[in-house]
């Protein structure tokens, strides 16, 4: 029957078919605007050579926000405790350097990511049976427990005074860390590029598609035979790994870490950045983190006491006029312009 159908298919039907197929076949292709954030990052090195320490911190926040986008934007897991994994990576690297003498930076980042990822599997397996507010509370509770645990053993973790003066080997055994943070900037940029490439592959893979399915309609996913819990735990662990790597880079570039990395504020901030930029589209993490951190930097210099008012105002405006983030606002403006040009 299928054969006779295809034989009687009209030329028009054939065209509609190939149009539809082309869309999916080409969707994951790289498009030129995607080079833009990387070109800007490279240009920044030459335009603001004395702001590279800030630049590294920004790149690390982008990586952290990207890890959140994977679970929040794609799989629809709402969490206000993602700093737990950032902090795990940060402390893994710090303690490995202090207690074990593991001072090689690149393997340290992978080690930090691995520890965070393994914890992500265990925690995810328990908490991802729940959704909505229950899940939200559990993520907050987990981060708070880690922080409090670190506080109890402050002899080991340095508590809120932190572990200062950490040392790491020169990068690749050659590049020393300079006062201006130039080495760190290229180091974090390279790490972000690698992580971004992996995340991009994942979201365009069949697995990534299944994640959007879980976000869009979990009842249907169960009905078509998807192992939903396994998928969620898997992506949670991947996201935890990336958050841990970002935390590891944070410790290495600052040579210092305190328990504030586990703060509720840190979890909330990364979520605000992502939502500000736009969720579920990768580049929202870049734009959101950049806008937020640059605003924060400028405002805190303008008014050291009231700068948070400016951040609050920006968020209110974003919620009112760009409820799908700045990238969503961009889409809206482009659609308006297109309509205006073609009456």
């Amino acid at each position: 029957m299928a054969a006779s159908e295809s034989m009687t298919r009209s030329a028009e039907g054939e065209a509609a078919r190939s149009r539809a197929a082309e869309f999916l076949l080409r969707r994951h292709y790289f498009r030129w605007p995607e080079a833009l954030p990387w070109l800007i990052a490279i240009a920044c090195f030459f335009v603001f050579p004395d702001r590279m320490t800030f630049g590294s911190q920004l790149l690390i926040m982008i990586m952290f926000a990207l890890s959140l986008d994977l679970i929040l934007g794609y799989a629809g897991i709402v969490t206000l405790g993602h700093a737990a994994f950032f902090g795990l990576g940060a402390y893994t690297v710090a303690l490995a350097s202090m207690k074990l003498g593991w001072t090689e930076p690149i393997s340290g980042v992978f080690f930090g990511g691995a520890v965070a990822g393994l914890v992500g599997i265990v925690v995810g397996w328990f908490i991802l049976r729940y959704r909505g507010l229950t899940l939200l509370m559990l993520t907050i509770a987990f981060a708070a427990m880690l922080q409090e645990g670190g506080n109890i053993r402050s002899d080991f973790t340095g508590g809120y005074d932190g572990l200062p003066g950490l040392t790491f080997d020169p990068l690749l055994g050659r590049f020393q860390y300079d006062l201006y943070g130039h080495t760190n900037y290229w180091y974090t940029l390279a790490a972000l590029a690698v992580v971004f490439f992996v995340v991009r592959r994942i979201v365009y893979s069949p697995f990534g598609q299944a994640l959007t399915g879980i976000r869009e309609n979990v009842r249907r996913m169960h009905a078509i035979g998807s192992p939903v819990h396994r998928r969620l735990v898997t992506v949670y662990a991947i996201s935890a790994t990336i958050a841990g790597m970002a935390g590891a880079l944070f410790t290495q570039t600052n040579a210092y870490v305190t328990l504030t990395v586990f703060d509720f504020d840190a979890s909330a901030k990364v979520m605000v950045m992502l939502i500000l930029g736009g969720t579920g589209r990768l580049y929202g993490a870049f734009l959101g983190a950049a806008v937020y951190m640059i605003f924060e930097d400028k405002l805190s210099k303008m008014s050291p006491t009231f700068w948070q008012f400016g951040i609050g105002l920006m968020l209110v405006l974003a919620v009112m006029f760009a409820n799908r983030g700045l990238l969503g606002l961009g889409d809206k403006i482009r659609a308006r312009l297109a309509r205006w040009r073609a009456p």
Partner: protein
Amino acid sequence: MTAALDVKGLNRSFGALHVTRDVGLSLEKGARHALIGPNGAGKTTLVNLITGVLKPSSGNVLLNGEDITGWSQAERARRGLARTFQINQLFRGLTVLENLCMTIGERDSNCNNMWRSAGAKRAVIDEALDHLERLRLVDDALKLVRELPYGRQRLVEIAMALAQKPRVLLLDEPAAGVPSSETHLILDVVAALDPDIAVLIIEHDMDVVFRFAREITVLVQGAVFTTGTPDEIQRNEKVREVYLGQEHHHG
């Protein structure tokens, strides 16, 4: 021959409310079985018990002779038990084509792959388009589901279930919410289903039921009132009293 689907002594209570009472039901391969009954008779609850959305308080569900009572929804689905929902359950923010590809991807366990691009498997896209073509949905392939009129969304709902290549298909009021001018589209699809699939349909429209079904089960207050051929059901005075008489005068 083992039945494609066998339901034995199924009970389910929500607290003191006994919603499903000792229900037994059997579908042979290729069955065309209708489940009718007044509102609140427990029809959708029964579908949820069969598909594993709910766990029964007691009783068993057998798929091709295998006891699946303890299985999850997803395990049942992968073994060939598919359903449509009374109210559409689709990926509304994705395109129609993506909805179908997702179903095929999960059916064939493609979705375990994290590295290959989703568009790289041409065979999946082609199969998805075949399913859409059969339901005349190719022109809507690239539209988001939420942009489609409800009647066409209903067709996507059915296309999804068929893309699972089920051996047993449960249709929960497939024409519900569809404007009457478009119901024939749905009914044609239902009438043209693969004769090997065992189909259980829940439907309120008696014209549809009597045209489609070779066997009918009447459910009243959670229990099987009677089971029989369309003729037997039509002639049964008691069925007329509890159900047919109230809503439709048929024949």
